[in-house]
């Protein structure tokens, strides 16, 4: 296709694959399996992100430390310009909720730099926020656990009184804690607001089987591709460590209705809970790929590659479906690194990965220019 890069340079964030794994490594692994000629740049916020040290298929070719998203769009763009100067980025696929506000703010500047970004529209993003999820549920005809937001613990406790204990106390972007009484609610409020800031939400606790749908919206109300699973193994933080693919017309229809209502463009994860004998309830919608997205990629449904190809203007056929019964199990492994690797990233703020698997000091500017094809 005209204008599409032959050797795309794709920046991906969310490189940590620890107890609360992020999706970056799974996204890289998936795209690399389809586009081995692509170069992957890690957008990293912490030198302890495990993805900086892996040499598996999900490894980065180079990585750059960024200021935390809370620093704002200006700082993000400043650092990104430096990275773009060195790498010539073609596409950014963010996998962290906290980055989206900054990316949406600088999206037009990125466009001028020739960088594509896989982000939803701002109205879509806002319409699936936890604080307004019940409104979306009403419009799409999907039940949502009762949820209230508050900026102080006393008001939050009043809301919890209406819902009843136990209930969940949640951050607007991250973190959810089950509390059984008002004392625990105050403690949870203080912890969550100290890290993520207000508002803090209180949500009715609904118990049942948990289902997740990872997919890609086409931006026009259609569902380009998806994979629905029942969670089999969960970490203490509720993260899926095992799942089995299902073919449930009800779950598929819920996903379709939500995507249609939001006119969602790009990757998402829908989380559902089905209490015994009752309907599926919408727990939340994550505006990014889930950490398990490399699993469907390995069985014929490579959604990250589809998103990358579509964004880069390459011919992109929608991926096929994963048959019911396919399963994934997350298996933790220990990797070997060296303190010099960490030192290099911290002192230089960037690192290059050599073919033999080691890390290297940042390349000289002329080497980079040569790599980009400049004279």
């Amino acid at each position, binding site marked *: 296709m005209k204008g599409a890069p032959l050797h795309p340079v794709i920046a991906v964030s969310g490189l940590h694959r620890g107890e609360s794994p992020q999706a970056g490594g799974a996204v890289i692994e998936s795209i690399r399996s389809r586009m081995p000629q692509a170069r992957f740049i890690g957008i990293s916020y912490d030198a302890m992100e495990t993805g900086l040290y892996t040499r598996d298929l999900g490894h980065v070719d180079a990585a750059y430390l960024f200021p935390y998203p809370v620093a704002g769009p200006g700082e993000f763009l400043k650092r990104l310009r430096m990275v773009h100067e060195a790498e010539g980025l073609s596409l950014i696929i963010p996998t962290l909720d906290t980055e989206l506000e900054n990316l949406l703010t600088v999206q037009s500047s990125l466009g001028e730099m020739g960088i594509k970004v896989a982000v939803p529209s701002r109205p879509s993003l806002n319409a699936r926020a936890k604080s307004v999820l019940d409104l979306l549920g009403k419009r799409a005809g999907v039940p949502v656990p009762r949820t209230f937001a508050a900026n102080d613990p006393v008001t939050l406790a009043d809301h919890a009184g209406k819902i009843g204990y136990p209930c969940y106390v949640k951050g607007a972007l991250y973190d959810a804690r089950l509390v059984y009484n008002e004392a625990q609610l105050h403690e949870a409020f203080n912890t969550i607001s100290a890290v993520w800031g207000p508002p803090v939400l209180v949500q009715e606790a609904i118990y049942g*089987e948990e289902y997740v749908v990872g997919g890609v919206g086409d931006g026009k109300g259609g569902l380009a591709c998806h994979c629905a699973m029942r969670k089999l193994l969960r970490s203490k933080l509720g993260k899926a460590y095992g799942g089995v693919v299902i073919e449930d017309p009800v779950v598929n229809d819920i996903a379709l209705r939500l995507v249609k209502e939001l006119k969602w463009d790009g990757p998402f994860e829908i989380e559902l809970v089905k209490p015994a004998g009752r309907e599926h309830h919408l727990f939340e919608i994550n505006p990014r790929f889930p950490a398990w997205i490399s699993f469907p990629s390995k069985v014929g449904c490579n959604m990250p590659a589809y998103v990358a190809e579509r964004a880069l203007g390459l011919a992109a056929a929608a991926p096929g479906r994963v048959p*019911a019964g396919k399963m994934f199990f997350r298996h933790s492994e220990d990797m070997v690194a060296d303190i010099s690797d960490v030192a290099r990233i911290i002192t230089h703020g960037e690192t290059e990965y050599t073919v033999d698997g080691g890390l290297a000091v940042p390349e000289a500017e002329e080497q980079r220019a040569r790599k980009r094809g400049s004279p």
Partner: protein
Amino acid sequence: MNRTGVDSIEKVQPKSSFVFFDDRFVFDRVSGMFFAISEEAALILRSAWEGLDRDDIRNLLMQRFEIERGTAIRDTEQFLGKLKELGLLPPTWRDRS
């Protein structure tokens, strides 16, 4: 039954969402639930989804497992009751007492 012991559900029970593995393990493709069950229970579950009625199922149990009629009736009723409780019976069975 194929080499891996998995029946093709499309061939056997076009309306069922269950996949049977050696008649000892059942996976529900819709809900993602799976169960280890006895061969007797598998026969009852399969038969209910194939549209057989209670008498047919009892007779099948008696023939297949060489058991008394009383035992067949008890086993069939107990297991159908359990399946109904779990919502695993076909729609045509759900309103039956």
